[in-house]
């Protein structure tokens, strides 16, 4: 392994195609036990390579179903591979199940399956190759399991399409950030593409990877020729591209599907070439599973997911009402946030558990990288470990004890860390003292092996009302810290606490901080004045080339039009004289909210509901039934009505306008939820309080929710013939919990007859029928 990254090394080639040549089909892993000699023969045919891969691609507790034990197959596979007399790397493939949130396998379940493999093999292999992963999140679980359960080198490769995306949407750049952050010994790409098609992906990986790169393409794509399927690429052509990979800087090359011993023999002629490693210079970067945010130019961190001073969010966190939190995340993304801060610091909450859940829920809906904001190391570790990407940790400060707790977490998972220029004595008054703390933080991080680009320094904003003289120290500190070659952050709006016209101070301070080199304002992205300042700064600093973005935003600007008016322009199409009814029928959310407020000035809340909102919705429903209004318009009308209901609720803080609670779920085994989501929007628009349990919900969870909320009705959805049985089980669980009436079912495969057979009380064919039936059921 000493040669790794210095001299070109060679991996072996395809196993499946060689087994077929020998007439061996069926479960490949079992052949290790049933046909060991044939498997050994294949391994021996690759003995010119430096690394031999075990015949264990599908061997893990989730994917393998058969009569043998994992241990028996794994150990036999290692013994077979040893026949080649070279380094044996244990092949670990994906579980074949989709991880949550798209599928239902949890991160911890995937981790356990891989840990089991590591436990069995740790003493008899030379290393592990986790390969052909298309989900970076699953690969993270795998790498962590292998590293934590076996002290051996880990190589990790993913499968990309020719445009450079994995099926779950990760790019080569994101994969490199995450895998390198996890400390793999080599990373790269395999399978899916032939060597020619892999050139683009290889180039992108090599451009950013700081660790050795491993490339194992397929032998091109199979073609139909004279009635037979064939791979056309020759061993010479394969070697031609391999040489290109070597020239580009690859450290290890091998072959995947369709490659045979003669291909690897050709590759071996390249062995020993000096690896052409380039000096890689990368910017600070954080990622989600599908989006990378590189700190080139100013990046906005949205600060609104923090319960401090936000009673509604606080209430939502305590009640585990994640809709409110998700809504806030989505609003910040829509307003242009690049990163979202997540803070759940409330004394009555189990912070580690809630932090993990909130991060997971927010990531499910918004693809922005997250900033995990906590002073509790247990909460930080739990969230960072299960985070799909490279998060930002907020924060450490100059106190040794804090750094000793947080830096090991950051190092282990490759996270970026925000360092506050304060210590046990508080925030030092002068810029120079804060600069010294920044230096100490960067030095200590280096002691833990954390690169400088993984540190962002916050020189701390104090309020101008209490510490007026120190405002300029913050800015001066920022300027000094920039000389250390790190990125900077500030919680900008702290400056204006206690003073009138806060927006004016905020935007002025923001402009001054940007001029001093601020990279990441932590702010409210929905504050139109501050975001406008950022756009202006883009022009003045030259990052918005030719002022393109600025011009696109303000080309229609006239002095009379305020920022508020600009927001309204999204609602063109509504005549100035439009009534609340019109706005609901046309699905105009903002306008509907505005007119509801007006109505409430002169009318009682309930008369607005019963006199305007419900009749408008009924009208929309009638038009839908008559085929004059269609699904998207119905949904838009429901959304507008929901916004209006929200405005009315503000007038009735205690009892609200809820017409009753409805629990909704897509049953276990089914992940189709668009139909259920439409029912949710429409039911909410009629003023029902909806508890949405999501998709793939086990019967006992639905029963539990029934007992907790005692709802007016329970709505169950299923789209597949295969999940009707699961719906029946859910109904049985509900009956056992005492739910005597009010079970509604719906979904593409259901009919009135099936609903009756499985014991439901009502079948409704669509969202509208659901609400109509619910209305009459509620009034009984």
């Amino acid at each position: 392994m000493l040669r790794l990254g210095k001299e070109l090394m060679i991996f072996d080639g395809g196993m499946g195609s060689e087994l077929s040549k020998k007439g061996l089909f069926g479960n490949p892993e079992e052949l290790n036990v049933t046909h060991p000699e044939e498997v050994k023969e294949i391994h021996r045919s690759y003995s010119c390579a430096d690394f031999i891969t075990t015949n264990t691609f599908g061997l893990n507790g989730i994917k393998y179903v058969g009569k043998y034990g994992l241990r028996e197959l794994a150990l036999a596979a290692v013994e077979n591979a040893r026949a080649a007399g070279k380094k044996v790397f244990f092949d670990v493939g994906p579980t074949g199940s989709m991880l949550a949130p798209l599928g239902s396998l949890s991160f911890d379940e995937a981790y356990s399956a891989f840990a089991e493999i590591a436990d069995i093999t740790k003493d008899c292999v030379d290393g592990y190759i986790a390969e052909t992963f298309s989900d970076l999140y699953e690969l993270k679980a795998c790498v962590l399991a292998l590293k934590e359960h076996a002290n051996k080198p880990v190589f990790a490769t993913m499968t990309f399409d020719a445009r450079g995306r994995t099926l779950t949407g990760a790019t080569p750049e994101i994969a490199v950030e995450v895998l390198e952050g996890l400390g793999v010994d080599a990373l790269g790409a395999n399978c899916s593409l032939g060597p020619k098609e892999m050139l683009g992906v290889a180039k992108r990986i090599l451009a950013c990877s700081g660790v050795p790169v491993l490339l194992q393409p397929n032998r091109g794509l199979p073609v139909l020729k004279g009635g037979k399927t064939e791979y056309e690429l020759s061993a010479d052509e394969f070697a031609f591209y391999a040489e290109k990979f070597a020239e580009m800087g690859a450290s290890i090359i091998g072959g995947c599907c369709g490659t045979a011993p003669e291909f690897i023999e050709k590759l071996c002629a390249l062995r020993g070439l000096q690896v052409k490693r380039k000096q890689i210079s990368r910017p600070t970067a954080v990622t989600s599973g599908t989006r990378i945010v590189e700190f080139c130019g100013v990046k906005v961190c949205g600060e609104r997911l923090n319960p401090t001073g936000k009673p509604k969010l606080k209430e939502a966190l305590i009640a585990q009402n994640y809709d409110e939190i998700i809504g806030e995340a989505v609003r910040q993304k829509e307003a242009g946030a690049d990163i979202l801060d997540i803070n759940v610091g409330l004394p009555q909450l189990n912070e580690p558990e809630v932090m993990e859940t909130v991060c997971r829920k927010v990531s499910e809906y918004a693809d922005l990288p997250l900033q995990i904001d906590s002073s509790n190391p247990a909460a930080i570790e739990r969230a960072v470990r299960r985070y799909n990407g490279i998060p930002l940790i907020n924060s450490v400060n100059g106190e040794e004890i804090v750094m000793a707790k947080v830096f090991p977490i950051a190092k282990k998972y490759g996270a970026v860390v925000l360092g506050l220029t304060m210590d046990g004595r508080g925030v030092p008054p002068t810029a120079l003292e804060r600069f010294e703390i920044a230096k100490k933080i960067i030095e200590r991080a280096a002691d833990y092996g954390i690169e400088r680009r993984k540190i962002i320094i916050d020189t701390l904003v104090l309020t101008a009302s209490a510490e007026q003289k120190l405002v300029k120290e913050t800015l001066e500190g920022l300027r000094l810290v920039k000389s250390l070659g790190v990125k900077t952050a500030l919680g900008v709006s702290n400056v204006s606490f206690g003073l009138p016209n806060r927006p004016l101070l905020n935007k002025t301070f923001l402009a001054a901080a940007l001029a001093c080199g601020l990279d990441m304002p932590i702010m409210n992205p929905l504050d139109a004045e501050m975001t406008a300042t950022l756009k202006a700064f883009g022009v003045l600093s030259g990052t918005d080339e030719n002022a393109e973005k600025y011009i696109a935003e303000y080309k229609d600007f006239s002095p009379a039009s305020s920022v508020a008016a600009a927001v309204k322009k999204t609602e063109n199409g509504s005549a100035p004289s439009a009534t609340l009814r019109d706005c609901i029928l046309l699905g105009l959310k903002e306008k509907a909210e505005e007119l509801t407020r007006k109505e409430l000035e002169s009318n009682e809340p309930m008369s607005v509901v019963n006199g305007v909102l419900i009749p408008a919705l009924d009208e929309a429903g009638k038009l839908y039934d008559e085929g004059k209004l269609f699904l998207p318009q119905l949904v838009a009308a429901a959304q507008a009505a929901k916004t209006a209901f929200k405005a009315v609720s503000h007038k009735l803080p205690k009892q609200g306008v809820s017409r009753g609670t409805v629990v909704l779920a897509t049953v276990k085994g089914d992940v189709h939820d668009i139909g259920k989501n439409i029912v949710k929007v429409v039911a909410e628009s009629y003023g029902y309080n909806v508890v949405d349990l999501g998709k793939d919900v086990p019967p006992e969870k639905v029963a539990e929710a029934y007992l907790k909320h005692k709802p007016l009705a329970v709505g169950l959805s299923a789209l597949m013939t295969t999940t009707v049985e699961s719906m029946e089980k859910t109904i049985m669980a509900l009956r056992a919990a005492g739910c005597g009436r009010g079970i509604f079912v719906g979904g593409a495969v259901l009919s009135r007859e099936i609903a009756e057979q499985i014991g439901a009380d009502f079948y409704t064919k669509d969202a509208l029928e659901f609400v109509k039936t619910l209305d009459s059921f509620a009034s009984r």
Partner: protein
Amino acid sequence: MNISELKPRIYGYLGFKGAVASPQTDALIAECLTELDEQNEFRVTYKIFTERPAFLNKPPYESFLKGASAVVIEVASLGATADARIKYLSVANAAKAVVFDACASAFLEACADEWETRFGETRTYRFCPGYGGSEVYDLKYVFELLQPEKVGVTLSESYYMLPSKTVAGIIGIGISARKSCENCFMLPRCEYRKEGARCYDSEKN
């Protein structure tokens, strides 16, 4: 691919059934299709079989593939980003989420249609296990043969494929077949047939 040709199919998915959509809906459709076209995450895993896999030696596959010189089995997907986008839109703009969902389905079908033209004019349409009296459980054989897990497509215990914008298909080469409603499990309660329409383009298929 001319994405404007997808509109009738999208209207179908959205329940318009021949009616004229509103300008707002049309604008949303255009927006979603542009997004899908720019992203274009379409990918296919396939194998060509000159010797017919055993699971196809039973009705209705037998008669569907009668006389075929080869069989192509494919799994085509738009990837997980489409699911993520629908999820995001369900909060940011629920009406657009509904439209995006329909557009993504139509886009996937059209991408697969276009991809299949490489197998020549004389071929059947894409027959998916679950159609025409066949069992959805046969998907497990498709997965055994193709191992689409290698590109990230998975089959759950209840036999749905993930990402959700994924189709599986069996195509006979050297013969022709047209789609029909015969044996469709939805036939007794088909919303299209109630209106005298079909869920597929009967001119083309």
